[in-house]
């Protein structure tokens, strides 16, 4: 039977859980603002780079399209979520429809640029957008966090295992070379 103190205790837990959800909502807004801030900084860098290439560079389609991409990412940062990504992948897997491959189109435009240095710089900016967005998706998803932890842990364990195995093998070879030579001799006779 539940006594009055237990009821009160449960209500306090309820209150804490509701406040945690409020905290989560604030944190969700913060993450969007943080991503936007990073993208704005990157866009500022891109602008400075374009300025350093001369005013004509601002009319370059590769630059304009990259800036448009950044603007789109900033504008729709709140829509960059793991659930939306999974949903998109699933829908386009089961209902394949031809989509405009905007990235390939942009890469074509970039490949037409004469300067190798400018090409590399623009590709680098594009890569940095991708990294920022990918980090944002991983940071905001509990499922992806678990995947990262499990994969990370398995890589660490595999690395440690391999290291231990290497050390043991090395010791075996160094300390007991005769035994290994005997095994090798036997194997070569088969």
């Amino acid at each position, binding site marked *: 039977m*539940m006594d*009055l*103190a237990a*009821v*009160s*205790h*449960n*209500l*306090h837990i*309820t209150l804490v*859980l*509701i*406040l945690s*959800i*409020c*905290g*989560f*909502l*604030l944190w969700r*807004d*913060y993450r*969007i*603002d943080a991503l*936007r801030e990073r993208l*704005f900084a990157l*866009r*500022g860098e891109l*602008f400075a780079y*374009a300025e350093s290439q001369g*005013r004509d560079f*601002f009319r370059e389609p590769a630059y304009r*399209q*990259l*800036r*448009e*991409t*950044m*603007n*789109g990412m*900033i*504008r*729709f*940062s*709140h*829509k960059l*979520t793991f*659930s*939306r990504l999974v*949903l*998109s992948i699933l*829908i*386009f897997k089961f*209902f394949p*429809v*031809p*989509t*405009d491959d*905007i990235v390939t*189109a*942009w890469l074509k435009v970039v490949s037409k640029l004469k300067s190798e240095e400018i090409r590399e710089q623009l590709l680098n900016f594009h890569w940095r957008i991708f990294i920022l967005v990918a980090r944002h998706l991983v940071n905001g998803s509990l499922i992806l966090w678990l995947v990262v932890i499990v994969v990370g842990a398995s890589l660490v364990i595999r690395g440690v295992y391999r290291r231990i195995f290497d050390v043991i093998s090395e010791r075996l070879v160094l300390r007991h070379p005769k035994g290994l030579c005997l095994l090798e001799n036997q194997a070569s006779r088969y």
Partner: protein
Amino acid sequence: MAEPANEPTSFWFKIIDSVASLLYRLGPWFFIFLIAREAAKVLIAYSGKQTLAHVAFQFIADFKIDKLLCYGVGIGGAAYGYKQKRLKEKTIVRLAPEGQERERRIDPDRTSSRLTPRGRTRREDEP
């Protein structure tokens, strides 16, 4: 880069948008509903023995100094964060036009992210 998507793609994009928006909006409310349902179960299990006033009194009486401090730190932290956000928005309103103006002088055709002057999502873009 923002070329209009073709018809079937647009249709699926709208579907994705609608479902994701629903999850985005309803997600927190779903958890609040689950928590409230569990709390209601507790209250129903106890109902009839004493009045809600007793439960409320006990609930308030349980606000001992340690719990008060925890709630205070939590709510205070959230309030601090919210104030900082407001301050940042005011700074954006104050400083952003200068940067925009400078960029526009160099590149008159510069494109914008179309956020509000405070750096928030536009109402029509909200999920």
